[in-house]
């Protein structure tokens, strides 16, 4: 998402806009939800930090909507356009979120034939956003991709460019639908609901957690977009490869040498898929896996 924000930022900059782009993240980075933002203006930008009232919200994966920490619904207004990478229809999302915002669907990238294209969802988001704001040409998107990705080699630039053009063109019917919102007025605004913090007992007021192993209660598995699934018939019971390489210690091996994935804490990094010598672990898109689970149940 950081790269996506930089591609969009560079494209605006190439179109002679003043620009601000920045990522935001917390302490846990590997596989954690991340957001980034872009501001663009013909004038000097004084605003800074979190965008309280975004004109456009791009959601790279629809599983983020249900994560409160991702905060994708923050500041959504009627004026806002929300572009979401999803298999569900815009009406479904409008109904689900009960929002007055315009909802658009970025065709889900995992339908692409070549699974190696998957990581380029960021580029697709940036290019689609560039089309929706209506002031960035296709050529400038390609130029911005070259600026941001040149260090990674021409092959990567080309593949990202192809993904970008597909996404840009997919938004053609809505080109320019994102417009600048009205500023909050200094003479008529909602007063902040400030409170005086009470001085509380130290038992409550000290930032301490006394219970052990609380981190297991955070279901980091919700962050997963692709699920590793072990094919029992291909697994050679080597007892150690997948479980050793799992960076989140989310694979346990039973005494019989059978590996078991803790889906509550597997973030879907797919290192196990890459490492398994007999290729016994398959990567299944999360929404497909969930659908199959439901049908099986």
């Amino acid at each position, binding site marked *: 998402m950081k790269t996506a924000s930089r591609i969009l930022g560079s494209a605006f900059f190439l179109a002679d806009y003043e620009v601000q782009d920045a990522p*935001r993240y917390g302490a846990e980075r590997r596989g954690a939800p991340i957001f980034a933002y872009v501001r663009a203006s013909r004038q000097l930008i004084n605003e800074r930090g979190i965008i309280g009232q975004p004109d456009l919200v791009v959601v790279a994966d629809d599983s983020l909507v249900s994560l409160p920490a991702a905060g994708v619904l923050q500041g959504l207004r009627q004026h806002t356009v929300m572009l979401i990478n999803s298999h569900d229809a815009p009406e479904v999302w409008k109904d689900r979120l009960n929002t007055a915002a315009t909802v658009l669907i970025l065709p889900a990238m995992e339908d692409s034939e070549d699974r190696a294209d998957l990581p380029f969802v960021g580029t697709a988001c940036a290019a689609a956003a560039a089309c929706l704001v209506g002031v960035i040409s296709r050529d400038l998107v390609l130029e911005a991709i070259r600026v941001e990705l040149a260090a990674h080699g021409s092959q990567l630039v080309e593949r990202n460019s192809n993904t970008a053009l597909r996404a840009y063109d997919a938004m053609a019917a809505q080109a320019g639908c994102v417009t600048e919102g009205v500023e909050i007025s200094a003479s008529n605004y909602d007063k*902040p609901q400030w*409170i005086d913090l009470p001085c509380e007992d130290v038992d409550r007021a000290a930032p301490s957690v006394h219970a052990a192993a609380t981190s297991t209660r955070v279901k980091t598995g919700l962050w997963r977009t692709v699920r590793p699934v072990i094919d029992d018939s291909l697994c050679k019971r080597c007892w150690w490869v997948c479980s050793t390489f799992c960076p989140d210690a989310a694979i346990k091996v039973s005494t019989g040498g059978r590996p078991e994935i803790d889906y509550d804490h597997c973030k879907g990094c797919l290192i196990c898929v890459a490492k398994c010598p007999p290729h016994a672990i398959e990567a299944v898109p999360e929404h497909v896996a969930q659908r199959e689970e439901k049908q099986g149940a």
Partner: protein
Amino acid sequence: MTRRLLTGNGAAAWAARLARVDYVPAFPITPQTEIIETLAEWIDAGEMPGRTVTLESEHSMITAAGAAAATGVRVFTATSSQGLLYGMEMVYTVAGWRAPFVMINVSRGLASPITLEPDHNDIMAARDSGFLQIHCSTCQEVLDSVLLAYRLGEDHRVRLPVIVNLDGFYLSFTREPVELPEAQAVAGFLPPYDPESTRFRASAPNSQAVAVLGSSPYSYFRYESHLAAVNAAAVFEETAAAFAETFGRRYQAVEAYRCDDAEIVLVMIGSFATKARQAVDQLRAAGQAVGLVRPRLLRPFPAEQLRRVLSGKQGVAVIDQNISMGMGGVLHAELAAALYGKPQVPPVLASFIGGLGGRDISPQEFFEIAAITRKAVEDGVTPPARLLYTREELREVRKLQAIAHQERNTLGPEA
């Protein structure tokens, strides 16, 4: 001169490169690491001369920086938050050596509890060390301030190290258009460092009064450092004028925005001051005479300039992104000290504390700060200090506490 998108960290690295630094002692810490990574990459690729060494801690890093500066080379280093505190013994020590170098601090709130996001308690801890402090509010200013800082610190009348401060995330990771000056123009503004006779050579050792001293010589050397820091105020003006002549960008020790006819003035340091600037524009559009004052220089404290710009104003609202436990906002207290007993002092000097741990300050909050200050002027009563904290935020904390307490209840205190 090229204009390109750079993060605050990128701008800091470019400034070090343009300043032709000889030595970069380094130690990683979020959100600063990108600076030393960038410099290490350039030095490794031969794009930039100089040496970089990763030390085993900030304590050693700052020692190495001071020691190298004492030999007469140009030194650059960078840290943040806990790192600055870990090296604090040496921050105070090397400042006393009167060997100039530039250190970036990327502001980040201090533990405990721990955070990655910015406020100014880290840099305030270095306030009394002898380091000069320049505070930035844009990425352009980061680059320019580092160049200014070298010329300022290396000036024979000053000879003190300088910290250039930028906020984590809101500058460090935020890209903005930055004008990158030509190397030749920088070389003209910032000639090679000439340490003159203050240079230390191992082959010709001399004493720099680092022995344990009695009270009289101790007081003498400490006060000399103070006087040099005070001197730096005038030297900053000269340096900024020379900078403006070369690069066309003018930096005052105190930035005053729409203050001339202002009745109410907001006072802030750092990157959130640009948000205040935006709010001032909106308040002006609504017909309110509000301005913004931003001290760029915090050490030396630009007391005279602040008195001048605030003279005759009706109300001042200081927004501190720091908190001195048991006292309140540091900037508020310093400003009060600078104004007390002087003629034409604003009768209302209100204190607001906000942006702790990177907590956002909304436009509505700036509007409300202006409204409260105006009301205080009308009533003639300065309001008590106000933490910018909403009911909704407390509700969020209550949720976390409920989870924590639930665990205590189910697992017991022994767990």
